[in-house]
């Protein structure tokens, strides 16, 4: 057995354990995304990084072996920062169409993004109507697809269309996904824009997004032959 210090908590573990296993034993939770013992343990997502105390070195806890008197920090500023950027990087290559994702909100990635303050995920990701009776199917001009998630607000619980109070998502790809939905469901873009202006017209990106929305809508209508 070897002794290791995890965030100052001393635990005894088998010599060939990983830091992650030691942390579990210490009762600490380290987030993981690509760790599936027995199936896939290749340390590719780097969300589980922790810092080796005193060295500034970040290592993936899911595979990194412990050694005697090893001391690690699992939640300092540098670690949180690295995790946030890792999540942002994953999202950067992710098609954020939560509306049509079969996992229907049961998504570890989203959970972690919320925990680490990653922006750019639409309200649809946490909508209570998710997958059920989406308001867009009733041609309501809900701003969910282009608004930042995280409000957990009354509109969601009441089944009311989103008014965009958390501010718009500026990523072009997300807006494109949203426009596809609007045009596909036949939601009036004028309605969307007028609703959008209520809370967002003072946003620095307001004009840009309006323009983007209109342009993309034009393109989409053309593509869908509407």
């Amino acid at each position, binding site marked *: 057995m070897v002794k290791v210090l995890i965030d100052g908590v001393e635990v005894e573990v088998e010599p060939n354990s990983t830091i992650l296993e030691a942390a579990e034993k210490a009762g600490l939770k380290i987030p993981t995304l690509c760790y599936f013992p027995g199936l896939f343990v290749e340390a590719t997502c780097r969300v589980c990084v922790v810092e080796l105390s005193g060295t500034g070195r970040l290592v993936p806890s899911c595979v990194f072996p412990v050694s005697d008197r090893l001391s690690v920090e699992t939640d300092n500023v540098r670690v949180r920062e690295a995790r946030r950027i890792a999540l942002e*990087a994953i999202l950067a290559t992710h098609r954020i169409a939560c509306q049509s994702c079969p996992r229907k909100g049961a998504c570890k990635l989203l959970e972690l993004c919320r925990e680490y303050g990653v922006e750019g995920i639409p309200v649809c990701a946490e909508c209570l109507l998710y997958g059920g009776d989406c308001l867009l199917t009733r041609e309501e001009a809900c701003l969910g697809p282009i608004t930042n998630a995280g409000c957990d607000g009354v509109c969601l619980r009441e089944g009311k269309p989103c008014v965009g109070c958390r501010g718009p998502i500026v990523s072009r790809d997300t807006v494109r996904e949203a426009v596809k939905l609007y045009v596909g469901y036949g939601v009036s873009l004028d309605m969307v824009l007028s609703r959008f202006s209520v809370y967002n017209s003072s946003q620095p990106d307001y004009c840009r997004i309006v323009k983007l929305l209109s342009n993309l809508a034009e393109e989409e209508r053309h593509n869908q032959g509407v």
Partner: protein
Amino acid sequence: MGANQWSLMDKCCDLCRHSSETPCRSYITCAVEGPLCHDNIECREKRRFRISEIKNGRNGLKISIGMGSCGLAVGARGVYDATLRELERRGLEASVIPVGCIGLCYMEPLLEIHKDGLPTAIYGRVEPRSVGEILDTYLEGDVSGASALRNRVGTAKGELEVPLLDEIDFLRYQVRWVTRNCGIANPESIEDYIVYDGYRGLVRALESKPEDVIEIVRKAGLRGRGGAGFPTWLKWSICRRAEGLPKYVVCNADEGDPGAFMNRMLAEADPHRVLEGLIIAAYAIGASYGYIFVRAEKPLMADRLERAAEDARRYGILGHNILDSEFSFDVEVIRSAGAFVCGEETAMLAAIEGGRAMPRQRPPYPATHGLFGKPTVINNVETLAHVATIMSDGWEKFASYGTGGSKGTKVFCITGSAARTGAVEVPIGITVRELIFKVAGGVREGRRFKAVQIGGPSGGCLPENMLDLPMDYESLTSAGAIMGSGGLIVIDDRNCIVDIARFFTSFTMAESCGKCIPCRVGSKILYDTLTRIIEGGGSEDDLRILEEVGTFMKNASLCALGQTAPNPILSTLRYFRDEYEAHIKMKECPAKVCSKLVSYAIEGGLCVGCGLCAKQCPVQAITKSGERLYHIDASRCIRCGQCIIVCPRNAISRR
């Protein structure tokens, strides 16, 4: 050389009992200094004659032609054929041998002539049709046309006007330690290698205990030349103590950095030295099998190493019971599929095992868990060549070069805008300035020095005021560059730093294996951000993104490819931030390289209306606008810069 001729590797008479089945301990020494087990004047004479023939050529006439990849690329094959032809025409018998590159890439193809009684002369930039004339004038005793001489004897015409090889700036500051045979010995002949003191290190190692070999390498202070600079003895001793059999050694010859060719040059010019180092390493750690992993794009290097292994095997220097030492070891040459990441040690092991070349998280390190899960040592070509040389010449000499923490010599490759490009071997610790301005002769004429990228795409870019930095592992790392494999790319004032940073990033982005998120996505984010800046769409925020994502990659990537990929960006942000800011704030490229940020215009007073530019312009953006005046339509211009090149009056300006 006749095929049936007696060679030093053969038995001198029936009394010699060495063969690969019945090896003799003294074989190597005996081949040159023998015979040792019997005395016979004929056997001794045979050796003396053959050694002199190898050193001075048949009939005292020897012609060596630089036929490394660099020489071949500029036509050395034609020079070789022409030499044979011209000799035949004159009825002269001589040895004509292909040799490796001595590093004078800017002077290739090189032809060296030696005739007993005359100074040995080297001719640079030789063309096949000038070979005959060179031969004639040289044999008449006139060396005035040579580029350099190896020695002076005072008998030839024009001897004093031609510099000695050691007096040429490019070579004067060098220490030819590990590259000593480059350009001298025939790399395809094991006999040559043995005449030039080869395999003596192996003999010495086999006479010592493995632990003592490791101790000698420790005392020498040798550190890995493949990039990370890990102490070689430590790696060996960890592997020696590790449990598990068999053990393996791997020679990393997957040299893939743009601008680095020192491994290729060494292995092409002196493959036996690399092989000897590998056998010594195997002996030291107790390995029974080895691999030489060669980049398939460097086929000559693979061929030469393969041939070296075959020859060594034939004469009992490789295989079962090597030189009667009871140590057995064999190697196999593997040609890699050619991805940059194959050079990363764990990826290389995966490739040798037959898998896809993707790195894995270390620890465990290969020294304990390597090839097929067994203890494995991976060493670079140059590291191994140093091992052979240290074992033959002693660690004291090696350790007398270099600085406190970085001993010995290192081969650097100088490319880019340097006046003289090529590979040079210098003591570690020489300053960057000495290397660029003394050895390489500064930047090409008409240009100004701007920066130097040290360590390839994983390295950093240093400005003028950092040039007094000593080239050792620690100093370079602290300045944001790395020793890496030792490539220096000299950048002149016609280059845009942001554009250069993007070039290196595009390389790492393409070569990222894609396994881990920081490198796979991070390099793309960096590339896209730089592209935005270069195309004039950058904002202040982009510099923050570069720094944030760059630091993240450095800290969180799985292997050193991703960890070092942001170095070119982070170092240029440190030393050339104003150039980034000019692109972002002023939408201006100070070096006038980034095409979206420059515009072309014709100055009315200078244009004479010749119309050449209009003919050259690929998109017809230039039209006649007056009697003696042409005009560029900015909205059609694609900023290719062709018009500037053709205008005879310098009437076109780039802004």
